[in-house]
């Protein structure tokens, strides 16, 4: 986040231009443009301030709330980049998560990052109410190489549920995706609302990085 603030600030200050694709970056940049001139960005930026859930609720599409379960860390992410149907969000802890239709396609800044993934079949199965899917997930190794995991997944609907978030009751269909590969196995859970959007999920990154709980507002 700190880094992104700086990037935004640099872009804002030097170019004075902003296009549609960089709302996150230039938005941040505009807010903290003063930081670029030698001031300590860390001191100026609110230290790890988690945006209150009510504010997230009041600004749909602006925030994603992330809970890195293994670290017990919460952060509020803002949009930092858009590449086709994938959006990268970044938060104060300098962790970024890239989503494709709400499914985690990549992470950066975790102890064992998901460097890239193909998750289109999983999303297609969710859209059709269940089914099977193949995923490819790339991880960075301790030897600075990439290990690829081919996973066979099955997605089942577990019925509708209502949960309350920021004092708002949300109706969603719960899906469970169980994936098995040569080296590990995991289960993801997605709550999909009536508009077909993943509003909450619990998704595996890697055995070393654990699970992410993701709330999309």
């Amino acid at each position, binding site marked *: 986040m700190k*880094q*992104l603030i700086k*990037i935004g600030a*640099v*872009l804002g200050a*030097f*170019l004075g231009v902003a296009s549609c*694709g960089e709302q996150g*970056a230039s938005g941040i940049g505009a807010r903290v443009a003063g930081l*670029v001139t030698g001031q300590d960005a860390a001191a100026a930026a609110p230290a790890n301030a988690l945006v209150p859930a009510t504010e997230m609720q009041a600004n749909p599409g602006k925030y994603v709330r992330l809970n890195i*379960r*293994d670290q017990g860390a919460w952060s509020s992410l803002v949009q*930092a*980049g*858009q*590449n*086709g149907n*994938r959006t*990268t969000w*970044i938060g104060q802890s*300098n962790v*970024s998560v*890239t989503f494709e239709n709400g499914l985690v*396609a*990549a992470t*950066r*800044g975790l*102890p*064992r990052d998901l*460097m*890239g*993934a*193909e998750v289109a079949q999983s999303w297609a199965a969710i859209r059709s109410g269940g089914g099977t899917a193949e995923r*490819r*997930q*790339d*991880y*960075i*190794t*301790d*030897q*600075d*190489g*990439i290990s*690829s995991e081919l996973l066979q997944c099955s997605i089942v609907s577990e019925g509708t549920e209502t949960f309350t978030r920021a004092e708002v009751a949300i109706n969603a269909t719960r899906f469970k995706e169980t994936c098995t590969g*040569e*080296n*590990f*196995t*995991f*289960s993801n*859970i997605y709550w999909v609302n009536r508009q077909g959007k993943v509003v909450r999920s*619990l998704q*595996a990154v*890697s*055995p*070393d990085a*654990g*699970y992410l*709980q993701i709330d999309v507002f």
Partner: protein
Amino acid sequence: MRAKAFLATTALTTVICHQATAQTTDLSYGQFGLPGLVDMPIAQSAPEGEIASTIVMRDGLFRLNFAGQLTDRLSGSASYTVTDLYDGTGVGIDDGQFERSFSLQYRLINESEYLPAVAIGMRDFLNPGRFQSEYVVATKSIGDNLAVTAGLGWGAMGTHEGFDNPISGRSTRPTFDETTPEGQLATDQWFAGDAAFFGGASYQINDKWGVTAEYSSIAYPQEAYAPVLDVNSPYNFGVTYRPADGVQVALASLHSSEISLSATFVLNANNRPGMSGIEGAPAPIKVRSANARAAQTWDRSALPEAGLRAALQALLEIEGIRLTGLEVTDTTARVRYVNTRYRSQAQALGRVSRMMTQIMPGSVETFILEPEQRGIPLSATTIQRSDLEALENRGGASEAMFERAQFSDAGSDAGLMGIETDAPAFSWGISPYFTLNSLSTDGSMSVDGGLKLSARYQITPQTVVSGAIVQSLLNNDGKDPVADTTPELQNVRTDGGYYGDDGVPVLQSLAITHYGRPGTDLYSRVSAGYLETMYGGVSTELLWKPVESSFGFGAELNYVAQRDTDVGFGFDEYDYDVLTGHVSAYYDFGDGIHSQLDLGRYLAGDWGGRVTLAREYDNGIQISAYVSQTEVSYEDFGDGSYNKGVRITIPQDFLTGQPSRKDYGTTLRTRSGDGGAMLNVDGRLYNIVRDAHHDDLNDTWGRFWR
């Protein structure tokens, strides 16, 4: 099985389960560095990539071992031992004698359901040393916790209840000659003389505690120059305790006469504590709109080049990368930069590319990235911007990007707009230092430590004046160094102990160095001044190393004079000057095996060669070993005619997970005498250059997208 569990919001428990096979407890390390019982070896070996250091202490002995599992089957270790030895009469005792030894073990047969693992090994194998032994050993596991070992030993390991050598023709073992303690490869001794049986067992009670018992075949006979240890019985017993992952503590009873305490610290090069690193997320690729991509030119009035340059400079600074040159045409942007943060140049390439996408005009499709060190460009990596856009975060992106990237020699300076740096031309710093020197020939090791004041002044990016003033806090004894065992040769190294031992600050180095690119694939260095503590003069080097080649060829020629022992400006004391240098061939075999061959003339005017072999892990851990030989006859050369050493390097980011280009290294070498001595000049070309070449980039390419 390793599992990460957590409680979900819905009270659902979910785990990511590893399907990997169950892992057994780490093997216990013995007193000679490799996994073993107490004093005796076992046939099993550590997992590939494991590195262990062991400290052994008992009355009359202190030993430091470094061991590495070099391949799946080959293990090696280096040991420094300070021990009491019987003197020449075999009656008196010389305290605290210093011994160095190298050991190897190779696992011939893997353990199977009915067959034991079988290994062959040699301890202290290079020289006819005090501990020299050879052995064949078999170990069989019974269940998960018990392992039983039996073996046959020669040399020191054939001294208890020894019998005639079963290998015919090797019934007598040449005696150990104290007057030539080191120097010749001790092949005559290998597997010669009496042999003896040894054996033992180890039982792991639980994760933390284990017990060991062995029947030792080392009798520690009381004889001239032998290690001192009373032997009341052949049995040794040990208890091991593992307080934490990677730490073992062992208490052992030796021959019913001594108690020893040892501690082992284990790390595995394949198991990085910082895992994939904890550096912050990079900037996402900024994808161009269709219109921007279609543009043929860029509007220089809307986005002036000066603004582009200043913005890119600021963006790269966030990544610890200094922009030194930029050339932007309508379709191509070429950047030259110095990466000061990332060990992996591939990662720096990725970070620079990401920043370029933030800012380069839409018509610029081709990025050419030229990493620079010491003022010279090392290579050019050409990347298509549309590949960055298409491959970001996709499965298989790393491999695809490497295939699509093109690697070549860096372009010329022509067309490149230089970037004014705001870094000061003059910089300095004070740091503590600590060194272990094994220059002395009497078997002792000298330790030095103190403060170092370093300063550098950059005249141009390629030309730097640098120097260091050193104040030793330990080396102020003013004592004479050791006896010279090679009177025929100039004391090019054996007088090292005279240097800077007056307790006052000394001028360790003060030299001007110029790096250059005299032609395609060619790199040059000229250094002049006070190059190192003992020598001053001129050192020149030329390296030929194509970016995509695994082969490099270099030549170094130095004309140097021996400095005065007060380490000031003078050269009068010795009146010795010499033309020294060598030609070098470098080859990267792949799979982490690197080699170097140097042939040439050493400091004392002697001729010879040196072979270096290194096992380098892609994450930066290196274990290398070298052997050098000179033409000087063994009689003249005496100590150390076969110079050899082992070096271990661990990069800082391996330990911390934070990006850094620093590393920590230590060299264990045998005594270095006056023969086979090389100039210690700073900044030799090969390691600087290869860092940004194809093979090294490939090694860490997994970091490109990180």
